[in-house]
């Protein structure tokens, strides 16, 4: 018989025990009667012989060894009964906890998906390591270094190479740009991935540059674009204007080694020349240039080799490589020029800077939701204590009947954990909903960068939530249980409902909880306020250009195999076509979109002046079509715009930004004086240009922050400075979206296989720049308000409780002539005192915390006095309201009744 068997046959056992003892008594009685006792006497003797039957039973139950479980079930049943008896109380507590736990579950799900979950479909992910350079930002190594590391190391069973590139995919119906993986042939083998159909790459597909036009498609791409066609393997598709044979389909779930960026297909690294998309590094062949560090590498550790050993071994090889051929600092992608190699485990988001961003935001979000949970816990603890006050008599009776204190605490804790579990269950639903909401805040990366996160709950989420519920239940239940289980039995039994000493003690503890709540929600709200101020600042900021009503579409003609002549022809024709569309005001083009993903900068020097290299001015190098300034909305301060006459045959001209004009020629007073001056632009073969115009400064540099000072910019005519990668910009009469399909149609009319990339309103591209502030404000705002609501309920609860306890005193005061006003003042003063203490602590907390946010804020300091003062006043206002309601109730007390009630 196992213990659970015994447990679940408890009733049967009880019956048998009863029967067994009765049999004993009956037998004994009849034996005694045979000996000559009277029936009554015999029965009495038999009972005496056995001892009290209830005590014997109790000892037998103990002997069975399942007592703790039985008691636990007893507690559980009792707990459920108690909770069902007070549905209002239960509902409030469960709802409060659901908010707190649900918020935590949601954020855990997010962190899990972003940072913790191992790559899907990968074999033994624990053995995988990623190579990182220095503090780990983005790509790591060059192809030549990779081959050396792969051959010479003795710590990895194999090492694979990967990078990503936008690939233009044409299927003759509608072409599009997708994100593709460019990988060494052993990539799938190192990751241990078995294809769903066909094969992955063969070792010989790692040999001839340009010679292996084969492709493996991702499962989801195969599903969505080819309708899961099982006969697809062996057929060809057109990628970057070249035929590729589909050799295999990857297993479901695997979308590349860097989720949440989704890779749709993979080609061998030998096809790199077809996959090149960067406009600038044409001279640096990625397959032979040792300083072209555009690749990441993933290796599998040999059995029994630790990450640290492997890192040391690889670093030795790396150092030898660096010594023989040092990387020039300007070609190092690492900002600190740290050349050491590091190994990390691939989990969730792997690439350095994104991972760091995710880690920072996760910490912030985690701290926020944990604070909300703490506030919720404080609230529930408060409610439990109020209820414990009402249950004093029950507890006293049980103590008097001989229950141990530990037994009582266990009973009370069972109840609170039960509450927490109910809250967690409701919280799971809430978390699901919160996550749906959070996905609306995903960074608006333009295609082909699709940001996908699988936020579905897995076993880890459930385990986390369960654990959190149990811990929460113990945390908020323990103090009330300790308090409740030691009432002074006598006064409680005598129904002295306002025995003085315990009330004072409880109230102090409850006060402390209110103070904590006020402090925590104040800190949260101040953080929210700072983000809101940042957002307001972002809206007021003068960008120097007007993104509204502008539609943009980018092209990479290189991917489509266009040479320069064909590219010029295309851009000329498409501008003409778009200009004629109804609803279009002006059309132009540029190689760089303001606040977009790319920024190129180049040295600019005044002609006829020697400038030492370290004093050279760097300026954004923007190639624009004519009418660019009109279209983008940047005013031209002096001089003229580029025209169709500024061609490759005419003399080179340039327009400089106001800032560039002043830094090149510090002596000028008016930007107009720069007109006619000459400058030289470019790194290796500087071109001499004449300045024909000066434009207003614009914040058009890279996307990440809006508050950067506008960078010096030099604009050159597109016709004199061709770029295969360029964007069309269209200023429209109204909603730029309405022209999307027309633009697509016009492009298809010129080349039906040429896909426009990130065809979207410019305002959307720009919105990426304020993404972190918007998300921060939204997330913190929601949770901050949640915290405040909970804190307000807490204050209200404590004040109500206090008022109900002081009914007699208030009645007395009013009988003695106190005015309504005096009574309200009395109550509010008490609540306000608590609030002020809480606010003071919260202020100090906020000062400590907001410094950590500084990197996400702009236009406002981390200790912005307006925000701080505003939030403090707001919190105090809410607190006064929460005190006022019970206070007003107190004044309704009928003095006579109050005095008589004792």
């Amino acid at each position, binding site marked *: 018989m196992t213990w659970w068997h015994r447990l679940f046959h408890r009733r049967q056992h009880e019956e048998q025990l009863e029967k*067994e003892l009765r049999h004993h008594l009956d037998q004994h009685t009849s034996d005694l009667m045979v000996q000559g006792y009277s029936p009554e006497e015999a029965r009495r003797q038999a009972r005496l012989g056995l*001892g009290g039957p209830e*005590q014997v039973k109790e*000892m037998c139950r103990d*002997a*069975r060894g399942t007592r703790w479980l039985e008691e636990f079930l007893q507690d559980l049943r009792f707990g459920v009964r108690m909770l069902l008896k007070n549905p209002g109380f239960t509902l409030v507590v469960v709802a409060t906890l659901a908010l707190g736990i649900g918020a935590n579950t949601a954020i855990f799900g997010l962190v899990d998906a972003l940072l913790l979950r191992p790559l899907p479909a990968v074999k033994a992910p624990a053995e995988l390591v990623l190579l990182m350079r220095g503090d780990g930002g983005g790509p790591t190594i060059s192809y030549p270094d990779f081959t050396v590391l792969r051959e010479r190391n003795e710590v990895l069973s194999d090492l694979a190479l990967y990078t990503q590139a936008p690939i233009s995919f044409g299927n003759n119906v509608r072409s599009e740009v997708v994100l593709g993986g460019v990988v060494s042939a052993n990539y799938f083998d190192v990751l241990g991935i078995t294809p769903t159909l066909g094969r992955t790459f063969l070792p010989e597909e790692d040999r001839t540059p340009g010679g292996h036009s084969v492709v493996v498609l991702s499962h989801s791409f195969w599903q969505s674009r080819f309708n899961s066609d099982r006969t697809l393997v062996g057929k060809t598709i057109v990628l970057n204007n070249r035929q590729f044979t589909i050799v295999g389909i990857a297993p479901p779930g695997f979308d590349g080694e860097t989720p949440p960026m989704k890779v749709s297909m993979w080609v061998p690294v030998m096809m790199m020349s077809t996959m090149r998309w960067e406009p600038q590094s044409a001279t640096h062949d990625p397959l032979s240039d040792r300083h072209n560090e555009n690749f990441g590498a993933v290796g599998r550790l040999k059995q029994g080799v630790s990450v640290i050993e492997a890192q040391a071994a690889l670093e030795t090889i790396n150092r030898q490589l660096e010594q023989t051929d040092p990387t020039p600092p300007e070609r190092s992608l690492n900002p600190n020029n740290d050349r050491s190699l590091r190994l990390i485990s691939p989990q969730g988001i792997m690439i350095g800077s994104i991972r760091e961003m995710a880690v920072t935001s996760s910490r912030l979000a985690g701290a926020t939701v944990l604070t909300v949970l703490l506030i919720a816990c404080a609230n529930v603890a408060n409610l439990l204590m109020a209820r414990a006050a009402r249950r004093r008599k029950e507890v006293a009776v049980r103590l008097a009947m001989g229950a141990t204190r530990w037994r009582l605490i266990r009973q009370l804790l069972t109840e609170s954990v039960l509450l927490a579990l109910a809250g967690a269950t409701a919280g799971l639903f809430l978390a699901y909903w919160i996550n749906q909401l959070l996905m609306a805040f995903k960074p608006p990366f333009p295609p082909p960068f699709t940001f996908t996160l699988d936020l579905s709950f897995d076993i880890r989420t459930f385990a986390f939530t369960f654990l959190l519920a149990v811990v929460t239940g113990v945390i908020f239940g323990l103090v009330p249980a300790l308090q409740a289980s030691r009432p002074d039995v006598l006064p409680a039994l005598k129904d002295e409902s306002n025995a003085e000493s315990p009330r004072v003690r409880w109230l102090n503890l409850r006060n402390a909880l209110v103070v904590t709540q006020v402090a925590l929600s104040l800190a949260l709200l101040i953080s929210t306020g700072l983000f809101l101020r940042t957002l307001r600042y972002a809206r007021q900021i003068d960008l120097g250009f007007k993104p509204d009503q502008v539609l943009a579409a980018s092209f990479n003609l290189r991917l489509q195999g266009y040479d320069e002549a064909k590219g010029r022809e295309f851009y000329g024709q498409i501008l003409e076509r778009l200009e004629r569309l109804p609803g279009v005001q002006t059309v132009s083009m540029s190689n760089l979109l303001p606040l977009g993903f790319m920024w190129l900068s180049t040295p600019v020097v005044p002609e006829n002046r020697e400038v030492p290299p370290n004093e050279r001015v760097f300026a954004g190098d923007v190639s624009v079509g004519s009418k660019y300034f009109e279209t983008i909305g940047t005013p031209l301060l002096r001089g003229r715009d580029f025209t169709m006459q500024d061609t490759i045959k005419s003399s080179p001209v340039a327009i400089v930004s106001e800032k560039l004009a002043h830094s090149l020629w510090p002596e000028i007073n008016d930007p107009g004086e720069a007109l006619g001056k000459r400058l030289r632009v470019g790194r290796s073969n500087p071109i001499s240009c004449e300045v024909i115009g000066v434009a207003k400064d614009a914040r058009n540099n890279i996307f990440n922050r809006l508050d950067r000072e506008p960078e010096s910019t030099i604009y050159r005519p597109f016709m004199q400075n061709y770029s295969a990668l360029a964007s069309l910009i269209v200023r429209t009469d109204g909603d730029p979206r309405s022209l999307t399909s027309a633009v697509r149609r016009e492009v298809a009319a010129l080349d039906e296989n040429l896909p426009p990339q990130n065809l979207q309103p410019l305002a959307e591209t720009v919105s990426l720049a304020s993404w972190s502030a918007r998300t921060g404000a939204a997330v913190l705002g929601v949770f901050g308000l949640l915290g405040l609501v909970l804190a307000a309920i807490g204050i209200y609860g404590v004040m109500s409780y206090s008022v109900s306890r002081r009914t007699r005193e208030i009645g007395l005061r009013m009988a003695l002539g106190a005015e309504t006003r005096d009574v309200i003042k009395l109550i509010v003063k008490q609540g306000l005192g608590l609030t002020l203490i809480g606010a003071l602590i919260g202020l100090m907390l906020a000062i400590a915390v907001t410094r950590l946010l500084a990197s996400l804020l702009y236009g406002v300091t981390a200790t912005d006095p307006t925000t701080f003062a505003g939030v403090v006043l707001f919190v105090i206002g809410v607190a006064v309201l929460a005190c006022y309601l019970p206070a007003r109730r107190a004044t309704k007390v009928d003095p006579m009744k109050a005095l008589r009630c004792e």
Partner: protein
Amino acid sequence: MKPKSDLPQGTLDLLILKVVALGPIHGYAIAQRLEQVSRGVVQVPQGSLYPALHRLENRGLLVADWKVTETGREAKFYRVTRKGQTQLETEAAGWQRLTQAVSLILKMSEGGAG
């Protein structure tokens, strides 16, 4: 009333095992048998008999079935399991050694005095 001695600690389990090993038997009969066999010297506290039985059952040394007695009533009959048998033998042997040793010591001190 005859003077009765209390049971030394831990011996109740051993005695119960021994009695039950003689054949299936119910609780009341065990109490009776112990008292008879010890000729009334050993007073079995009936209050601790049943917890002891349940403890031994719990440890897997005894099993029980419900059977009809000769008087036509249902009673819980205990049997010794194989594990209980082994336990009985070990403990009995241990007890033998202990009592021999104790009596040896007692005799020796008597001899010393005489």
